[in-house]
């Protein structure tokens, strides 16, 4: 299957566009490509909130909302939590997300 594109907007303003195969999480892709600010300490368990991103508004609907478990982890970073917050370990890259754009959220 053809590679899909994901763009991460780092806190320093640099945009990194990465080509990746579907099926991986946006956290894994970011970590493998040294996107600054995406740490993924817990390895994708949805328990540490170190892969927090803001989904660009035009992509929100296709990406979807956080479920209850993810929301409660996001609540722990309340200073930075916004309506378009997601933990990107919970977003799996798939065809309809080709070109998706997310901004790295500030860490505490």
């Amino acid at each position, binding site marked *: 299957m053809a590679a899909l594109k994901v763009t991460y907007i780092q806190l320093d303003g640099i945009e990194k566009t990465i080509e990746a195969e579907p099926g991986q999480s946006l956290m894994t892709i970011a970590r493998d490509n040294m996107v600054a600010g995406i740490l993924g300490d817990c390895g994708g368990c949805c328990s540490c909130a170190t892969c927090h991103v803001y989904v660009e508004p035009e992509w929100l609907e296709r990406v979807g909302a956080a479920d209850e478990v993810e929301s409660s982890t996001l609540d*722990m970073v309340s200073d930075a939590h916004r309506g378009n917050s997601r933990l990107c370990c919970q977003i799996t890259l798939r065809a309809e997300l080709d070109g998706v754009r997310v901004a790295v959220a500030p860490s505490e």
Partner: protein
Amino acid sequence: MGQSNAETQATACPASGGSLFDLAGSSLTQPEIQAHPNAFYQAMRREDPVHYDEKLGMWLVSRYEDIVTVLRDPLTYSDKHGYAAQYASGFFAEFKEILEREGGGFFPDVIKDDPPAHTRVRRLLEKAFTAHRVASLEPGITTIIAGFVEKLADQAAGGRVVDGVNDFAIPLTISVICEQLGLSHFSADKIKGWSAAVTAQIGRMQNREQMIDNARQICELQNFIIEQMKQREAAPREDMISDLVHAHTDDGGKLSFAEAVSLIRALIIAGNDTTATAIGNLLFILATRPEVAKALQGSAADDRLLNRFVEELLRVAPPVRGLAKMTTREVELGGRKLPEHAHLLVLYASGNDDETHFTCPREVDLNRGNLSSHVAFGVGIHRCVGASLARMEIKVAAREIVKRLGQIRLAVPVEQIRYLPTVATHSIQSLPLTLSRRQ
């Protein structure tokens, strides 16, 4: 409320000016400092943030920022070598010999390895502890915990004194982890003894006689684990020991026998010891801070608030005080030049108490915006893999306690509460309480 001067001083907010603490004449090996460490931590953060503790022979890392720096750089600050130098310190050769002779072998802790070896095993464990999987366990664990709260209330009937640690926190967490591992017939007393024996190996406070006794207990634990593994090798079951015995790692291989023994040992011990400490601390806070107890009693059904309370409890009273690292090269940390092979104790508890990162750090504040940035679970590649399970157990314990119990009081003056002699954790040894059912 009988707090020590140090605790009172740190409570005054904003943090008071000069410290009168005698840093040079103090050591973390002193039981009084182990029990009430906050003034010691504060003095280090202010005067000597990477402080050499001569009696302990270790550099104490006390500031939040330096702690995160260390934990984010596992190749410069090796967990493997720091742990090895801490383990059974002073008696290692004899300890190892006992385990090889009587306990099936000496099995180094694979969870304390450095990358890349660590990564392979870590990926395997992560799958067992995702927040979503843990959420699905909540109803079953609630039943177990509610049973323990009811039993505690029965024991306390008529004003009888109960022990919040030994009658409640420890047997409760042992029950939960044994259920996960698939150990249906277990002796809680034995597991309690085994846990103490294992954690004593990084506590730096055991003498030779205690080491021998602890080594024998660990032999017994390992022989128990090996027997359980054999049963599941022959006939797999639906439990975590079977999962580990038959697991395939991402590289397509299997865990070695030694790795599997060490992982199951780590799950039995890590799965109950620190969580039990946290639940003991929960009872201590409910008994000594009535305003916190009152706030929770009005919010037993508010999951969001309970989650925030658990994080703040872990920040204010982290079970793990400090774990060891070792520098693999000369490096500067917090303005201090450290040589290669410097043995460090990373003081998570001091990081959580750092007033430059947490405003009024001694206060329980459920509205902190940076609540989750505490380091009670560690940071980076060794961040606690069981964090979601621990949080959920503590949350359910808090909920069932405030739902079912009324006022909880210390049955002794607060000065009489004793803590385990260890540099690794800050654990209440015994917590005498009186309590009643909620009206």
